[in-house]
């Protein structure tokens, strides 16, 4: 099928991308835009490693056609750090609390935690576990991931209070 031009804003950059209707968002991000932070894990919408932020929602980019995202604003893990390279508070919290072992699920975890903390800036432990229930980690047992999200929540709330 002929390619069509669609508009995306990815990590703040507006762009036009030529895609086939059947191209999945994860493939467009990784192969055309060379943003390889979001991973293809299960490829069946279970594991959440492909999670990106799209128009204020966390979505599994392996289960969305890129054409469906026409006009959308997308943030991937590459868009989280500050322009000077300083890590985002969530990334810093994952580093400090060692919220990862192999790191494969981490981009998805960080993007999901980002949206969760926008919706619920001070989640309880249970709410964090519920909130990241669409992201699988096969290494950590989740303990340090939950601690990382808790730390990020504290850091971000203090930042808001200070401003």
């Amino acid at each position, binding site marked *: 099928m002929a390619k069509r031009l669609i508009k995306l804003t990815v990590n703040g950059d507006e762009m036009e991308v030529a895609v086939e209707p*059947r191209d999945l968002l994860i493939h467009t991000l990784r192969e055309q835009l060379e943003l390889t932070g979001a991973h293809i894990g299960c*490829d069946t919408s279970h594991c959440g490693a492909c999670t990106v932020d799209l128009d204020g*929602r966390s979505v599994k980019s392996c*289960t969305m056609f890129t054409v469906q995202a026409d006009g959308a604003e997308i943030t991937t893990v590459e868009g989280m750090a500050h322009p000077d390279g300083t890590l985002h508070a969530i990334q810093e919290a994952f580093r400090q609390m060692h919220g990862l072992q192999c790191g494969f699920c981490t981009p998805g975890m960080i993007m999901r935690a980002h949206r969760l903390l926008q919706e619920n800036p001070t989640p309880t432990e249970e709410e964090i576990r519920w909130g990241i229930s669409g992201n699988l980690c096969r290494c950590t047992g989740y303990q340090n991931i939950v601690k990382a999200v808790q730390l990020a929540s504290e850091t971000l709330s203090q930042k808001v209070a200070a401003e």
Partner: protein
Amino acid sequence: MIPGDFDYLRPKTKSEALVMLRDGGDEARPIAGGHSLIPMMKLRMAAPEKVVDLGGLADLKHISIEKDITIGAATTQHQLIESGALFDACPILRETALLIADPQIRYCGTLGGNVANGDPGNDMPALMQCLDASYIIESASGKREIKARDFYHAAYFTALETGELITAIRFKTPEAGHGYSYQKLKRKVGDYATAAAAVTLSMSEDNVTGASVALTNLADTPLYVAEAADILTSSPLSADTIKEAVKAAEAMMAPAADGRGSSEYRTRMGGVMVQRAIEAAVERADKTPKKGGLFGWLRG
């Protein structure tokens, strides 16, 4: 996994979408959240020539609460969960939606897609049967309504004809203070039910004055347990009447043996879900004076 080739259509209005579905005939499929269709297309078990994206249709996303509750078919599970007004009027919708898939999928998945697909594992069909909902079905040539209780024929076979689209779901707003519960046994977050039951009921002192029971994933369609209402309203509520209602529900169940368990196990669990849902609904029914005698056995 790469889906087969298809033509992508993005209508701007509902009527445009209905014309596209009519013209596309059997080769066209509507897509909303896409979390049933895209996985099937990636496996090449579905290969529609045309995909009609309902994502841009604002007139399919709405929730109105009056004497009836009317919900646009493209309203997402996340929007159902988020709506405080809907929770106040009919809390079982949030309880059920929260047990569907996971947060990311609930941002995409829609009520209309969940009820229209005909997958016996989907949770909303049984809830809609429990609430005695009607589906509003539109096509390029007209509009009709069908009860959720009459909609499902077999797994993936429904009353929906080619070119038709469920555009809204409507049901009577339950009376204030009604009891409700959706109980779902599943192996892990995101799984379909091993067995699940939806119950709403109204109480006056120790008597059930109205009740509705429906089941998820315990046959190749959702099941409405018509007998349960008569059993539960026939005499003051007791452990025996609940047991009888459970028995009536179990008699209808015919779950497939699969990774979730044998048919016998899933039937037994179906009975447990019905019992728990009735008990939880009774506890939540506000008009109940909660006499010790009745609640002694419920808690004991």
